[in-house]
């Protein structure tokens, strides 16, 4: 008797408007928590960094000195060429490991009129000057005092790379390592008319080791 009545009572209880409303509210709250909790404590995803609002917009202007005390390079001097702005740091292991990839990219693409410029992030000029003495680094490495140019380009970490068109428009952004052929493929794509190209090459390094321990 009681076994037959039990499901009926349970069903009747579920039909109760208060219980129904409570269940719906509970589900809404649980759903919201399920979406929000995994996001807490996360760094900006590489997708957020790759989807730069600068894509398709005029590249922010800059004028920076070379680390080895050479000439000043500005956005105006790069006009008329496809140019690649590579934000890096000498303390960034990914950036150091990528030097051979950049050397081969430079030798392949510089002859086709593509300019490569390195912009140091949170890096003293002396460290950059020493870094520039490595074999094969023939492109200018610029010092960005106070990271103001990095701010203008909305840098989340390094390495991050922008491809600028001859008219000064931001055509592509790569986040993370450029890899052996990825940067070349992106440049080829934008030279064939591609715009708003955003590529996630991998994780970015947010801050220098000193800042990571002393930050906050």
């Amino acid at each position, binding site marked *: 008797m009681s076994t037959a009545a039990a499901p009926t009572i349970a069903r009747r209880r579920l039909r109760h408007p208060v219980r129904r409303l409570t269940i719906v509210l509970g589900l809404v709250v649980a759903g919201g928590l399920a979406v929000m909790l995994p996001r807490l404590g996360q760094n900006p995803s590489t997708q957020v960094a790759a*989807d730069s609002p600068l894509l398709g917009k005029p590249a922010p202007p800059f004028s920076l000195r070379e680390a080895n005390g050479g000439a000043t390079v500005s956005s105006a001097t790069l006009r008329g060429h496809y140019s690649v702005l590579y934000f890096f740091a000498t303390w960034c292991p990914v950036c150091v490991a990528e030097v051979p990839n950049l050397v081969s990219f430079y030798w392949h693409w510089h002859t086709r009129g593509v300019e490569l410029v390195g912009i140091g992030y949170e890096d003293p000029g002396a460290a950059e000057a020493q870094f520039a003495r490595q074999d094969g680094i023939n492109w200018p490495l610029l010092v960005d005092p106070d990271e103001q140019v990095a701010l203008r380009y*909305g840098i989340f970490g390094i390495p991050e790379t922008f491809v600028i068109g001859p008219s000064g428009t931001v055509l592509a952004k790569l986040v993370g390592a450029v890899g052996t052929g990825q940067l070349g493929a992106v440049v080829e794509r934008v030279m064939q008319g591609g715009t708003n190209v955003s590529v996630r090459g991998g994780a970015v390094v947010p801050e220098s080791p000193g800042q990571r321990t002393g930050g906050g």
Partner: protein
Amino acid sequence: MADQPTHHEAPRRVRRLRLVWSLRPGATKSRSHVSKALWVALFAGVLGVSLWQGAQRPVPSTPTARMEQVASQLRCPVCIDESAAQANTAAARAIRADIATRLRSGQSERQIIDYMVSRYGRWILLSPPSSGLGLTVWLAPIAVTLGALAVVAVAWARAVQRFRAADPGPTDTQVELNGERDLSLADRTQRVEEERAST
């Protein structure tokens, strides 16, 4: 001195007025409606004042305080859930320096925040925007709170209904007389007699 009301007379007069008011036809039901309306008005008032106070922000007096107020609305791009005002990273310092420069040049808070969004996207905002998809983040807690209040109100109303069905309780006159302990015996007797005569 004789015309001046004594301390005993004034409360008694008030109690008599209350008694007259409560003895009008349909008094109990009506009083319950008044009470409900007062609670709703009180709740709405408290909610309104809280929302208004929450929307008010103190106007910073110094340039540094102004800079910090703007920076506190932006994320540090290289940190985990930290504002550009709190973080001690190169990126946060760059943002603070840029905000200070822009404030000195006469830019408004809105213009500076829009500039940061144009560089980093909407991710840079610590609080979600109060428009578009971000609006749902603001409205969801209000909707859940109102829903929870509705659950409590319905449950309460049903509990009261069940209680009344089980026990009809004393008559209106008895309730009033219980509350008027200082009435004379003659007054009480008269009132009960009036009730009996009317039924």
